[in-house]
């Protein structure tokens, strides 16, 4: 995005949620993927939730991406997204888990063991 205003934001983040930081559904994480459900937004939706819906119009976004786009902290976007999910306006998907990595310690111990086996003819 070009033309991002630099400097101190005029509107503080707590205004977006009215000071609430506890999302109505706790399972939304930083990397949860949000996408619009296609339901038309009802009238009277808070401005910040409309802005979040708008940011999802171009495709789905992770919570952190939406936060960066809206210049809001992740905690605020989680509240907004949870509310929109409750209203069936947004679908949330659990973050794609990173491939199960092996514990490096375990690998090292296995390698050591193998080496030890090899050395002990």
């Amino acid at each position, binding site marked *: 995005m070009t033309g991002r205003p630099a400097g101190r934001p005029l509107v*503080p983040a707590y*205004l977006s949620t009215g000071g609430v930081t506890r999302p109505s559904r706790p399972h939304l994480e*930083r990397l949860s993927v949000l996408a619009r459900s296609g339901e038309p937004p009802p009238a009277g939706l808070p*401005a910040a939730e409309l802005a979040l819906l708008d940011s999802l*119009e171009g495709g789905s976004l992770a919570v952190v991406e939406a936060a960066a*786009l*809206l210049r809001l902290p992740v905690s605020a976007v989680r509240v907004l997204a949870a509310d929109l999910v409750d209203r069936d306006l947004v679908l949330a998907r659990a973050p794609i888990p990173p491939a199960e990595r092996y514990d490096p310690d375990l690998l090292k111990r296995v390698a050591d063991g193998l080496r030890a086996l090899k050395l002990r003819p």
Partner: protein
Amino acid sequence: MIELPDLVAGALAAGTLSAFALGGGLARSRRRQNRQLAEIAALRTRLDGTARAFTAEVEHLATQRVPAAARQVAHPHLAVPGPLQPLTAGTPLGIALENAVLALQSEAAAQRTRIDAAAQAGMRGAVREIQAALYRLQDALRGLQQRYDDPELAQTLFRLDHENEQSLRRAQVAAVVCGAWVGLAREESHLVDAVTGGQARLAGYQRVQVHNHLEPGTALVSHAVEPVAVIVAELLDNALRHSAPDTDVVVSLEHVHHGVCVTVDDAGLGMTHDERERAQRLVAGDDPILLTDLGDPPRMGLAAIGRLTRQFDLSVDLSSASPYGGVRAVLRVDSHLLSRLDPADRPPAASAPRTTRTTRRTAPDRAAAPTPAHAYGTEAGAPEAPPGHREPQDDEGDGLPQRRRRTRTAAPAPAAAPARSPARRPEDAAAALGALQSGTAAARAAAGDPGDSPRPHAAADHTDRNNDIDHIDHIDDEGGAAR
């Protein structure tokens, strides 16, 4: 010998005559003396009386008139008592005494201004330091908000940020009243951002309803941003403070002929005639501000508004009552303080209320020519864009997701819904991917060498883009789901 008695008789007669004459003169002189004595006594009495009256007059001046005159410097509504003897008014004495009172008053007024200026300078210095410290604290808090998203911690950070904003507002207002600059340079910003920013600085900001009827992109020039935010915050603070906690304070932003009006209505008690006059005098900013005039504790809001309106050529009107029963405050921002930002390029803050106007309908016209004074009729007649409709964008080729402003519509047509299939249900996504897989597998099997084949997909896609916008929506959605 006859002559002798005659002579004697003549002498006697002459002696008697002279004796009579002498006696008469003596008696006359005694009478005159008595008269003079009486006159002297009368004069002495009068002199005593005058001296007493003079003393009493000076005494009266010292004990009554001088203190009253000194008090009148601070409280102009107090009356200074006149001289004890009303007859002295025109006399040289009366004029001299009057001059003494006037000289005292002018000196007292000068002293008062000097002392107040010193107090303001001291306070300005102290408050500026506090303001700078609070800005640093704000930076720290916002950094923490970005970094930590644990709800408990975020709740605390939000509360601290809000408290900090309120302290900041007080410090800033005190500084402004004491003649300081608003203390923060901002860049050109959307007017609605400045209003929402002002709203956020208050306790009870949840009660404020902002209705934005401005054209998208209506912005303030950089030096007017912070003053407008401060003024709006103070007007809203007054409104919130003087209305019941279960009522809303309504703010509406509207275009007027000479610029933009921010109207703040509360449903509170309203002001009496005197209060309203005083408030109007303060916000006009014509009189110099003295801290001692502002009460204890000083009520600085209106005085700060007065300073800012005078410095930045804004105008605030408090003279009308609100239709909700309380006070209606109108801030007018003239056109020379307004500018225009491209909302697509620099969108307003996420929490700023959307405009009720539709996007890019009058924006180009407005830049070219001033809106006619009665443009309302044309608004009603203008065809509304259907809710699901999206204008084709020229710059859609760069492949990045673009934010698109979407107008808020009260009742979207249900006909648009079927075009946008909810393609992101897991089963659908799986089916789409499965179809794609089987399709590519079939194509690979059919074509011996895939490198040689032209790419019919891309070409079809391109023509579709020009024909069917809804279809693009569909593709966009699937692209989004696949990411």
